[in-house]
């Protein structure tokens, strides 16, 4: 199986005067089409790790290799294009654009990369809204939705461009256990159907155990890495 993302000796130190090291010598490889979960206590460095994976943050030392290429030499515009085409993000704090409707938010990753929206894309956006159970509120402004609805919208948005990889930070943090279950089934389904790689941070062990691989972070180090 081919490697979609490779992290080599990643260290992350915050601050310049008062230095706090958050990640210590992380080495991780992710396979194309795998379904991974990252668990760990609050403050252990999960989000930091994910931001580095997503090229949003740069490591203090170490290398990220995507599609055989190190990100350290890539220009800002190149990284932006890579993120737009290859990664779908679901952030811990769902982050929709409040000036746009739910559907417009879902379409945003496509519009960033293209001038016009073809009918198929529009249909797919609506289909995704239906899949996350939001077809009734898709024309609501992002501000007129509950936290859980916003989170589901963010998931639909991450899926729109059919990226190779989805990075999700507590994507079901605001959802009840039934909805959580439904969403994970959906993500698994997409994983199986399209071969999308999933890397999901969760504190819910029950959910984590449904993944192919569980990585546990403790104080910035990998304390557990099991593949089923």
């Amino acid at each position, binding site marked *: 199986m081919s490697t979609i993302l490779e992290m080599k000796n990643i260290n992350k130190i915050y601050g310049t005067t008062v230095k706090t090291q958050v990640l210590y010598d992380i080495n991780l490889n992710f396979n194309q089409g795998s379904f991974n979960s990252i668990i760990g206590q609050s403050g252990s460095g999960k*989000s930091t790790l994910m*931001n580095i994976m*997503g090229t*949003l*943050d740069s490591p203090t030392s170490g290398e990220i290799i995507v599609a055989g290429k190190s990100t350290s030499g890539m220009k*800002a*515009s190149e990284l*932006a*294009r*890579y*993120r*737009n*085409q290859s990664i779908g*993000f679901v*952030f*811990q*704090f769902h*982050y*929709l*654009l*409040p*000036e*746009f409707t739910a559907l417009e938010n879902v379409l*945003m*990753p496509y*519009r*960033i*990369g293209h*001038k016009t929206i073809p009918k198929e894309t529009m249909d797919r956006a609506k289909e995704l809204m239906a899949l996350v159970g939001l077809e009734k509120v898709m024309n609501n402004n992002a501000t007129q939705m509950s936290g859980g609805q916003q989170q589901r919208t963010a998931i639909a948005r991450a899926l729109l461009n059919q990226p190779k990889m989805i990075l999700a930070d507590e994507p079901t943090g605001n959802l009840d256990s039934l909805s959580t279950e439904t969403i994970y089934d959906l993500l698994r389904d997409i994983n199986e159907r399209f071969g999308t790689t999933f890397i999901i941070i969760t504190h819910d062990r029950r959910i984590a155990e449904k993944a192919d691989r569980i990585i546990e972070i403790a104080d910035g180090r990998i304390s557990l890495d099991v593949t089923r």
Partner: protein
Amino acid sequence: MKLSAQIATRFLKSSLTQTLIIILGIGIGVSVQIFIGSLIQGLQKSLVNTTIGNAAHLTITNDADDGYISDYSAILSDAKASDDRISAATPLLTASSLLEQDGDSQSLLIRGFDLDAAEGIYEFSEYVVDGQLPAANGEVLLGVLARDTFDLSVGETIALITPDKRTVECQISGFFDYKVAQANQSWCITTLKTAQDVFLLDDVANSIELQVGQDVVFESDAVAENVISRLGSSTLVVKEWQSQNEQLLSGLQGQSISSIMIQVFVMISVVLGIASVLAISVMQKSRQIGILKAMGIQNSSSSLIFLIQGLILGIFGAIVGILFGLGLSYAFTTFALKPDGSPVIPLYIDPKFIALSACIAVVACILASLIPARKSSTLNPIDIIRNS
């Protein structure tokens, strides 16, 4: 581009009050600019018009001994042909005489014109308040002050005493009021022929007066050069009004500079206002910019959002400004009137100037949005994603 434009409009709509206030601010700035500009231009036009509107802009005289020009009609047509900016030309014979009436006397400047041609410069018929222009030989037109001083009336005969002590009788055909005391008192307007007869001269003039078109009065120096080169080397001398009115010109220039200064400073304050509001708006929208950047929007597109906001604000501001400015001008020219019904302040509404003001406002708004655009471009999404 399309996405940036849509995001820009959504941002502006989402904080509508703020947007309307900036537009109002720009509008007021532009309207002040338009009003001040129209006012100064109007004042200058009316000043120039009262000063040289009914006067010769170029005068050709003869430097030879007696100063007379005998071939005046040839010179006149030569001069006229030298530059098509010349709108009117007349020969003129001027000489002093003494008006004597019932024991009183005053000096009277006889000005003999080709009256039809001179109408193009002096518009005599506009200023005749009593009687009519001289038609027959021996008829003269006097000023209203001379009339009042000597208690004269139309049709009356007056006695003129020439420098060589002869007495010549002329008949008054009418009176003019040029609103200038000196002219009203001592000018005596008549035909060239009558003037020649009074002073026992042949068919001569002692100057040729030319006027250029209204919109090219400040090009009189260039016209003069053309006339000079056309007339060739001779004893003829050409003088133009600008070299005779340096004080007026420097006064006008001073006005223009202060008007431009006011406009520049109004624009600077508008630009600073917009720049600061847009800078705040980048802060307000940094979360959204961060999300968009995480999703892969290019830095150039993210800065374009703010440039477009500047453009939109500029366009709407300019429109509001033009409406306000014209409204203000209209109000002034309609409600602030002199007793005779003419406006206290003569505004000059120049569509080109208004268009220029509007363009400057739009460009200024785009310039003002450069700083926020740059900020938006350099914003790092991780700072937004991390700090929540």
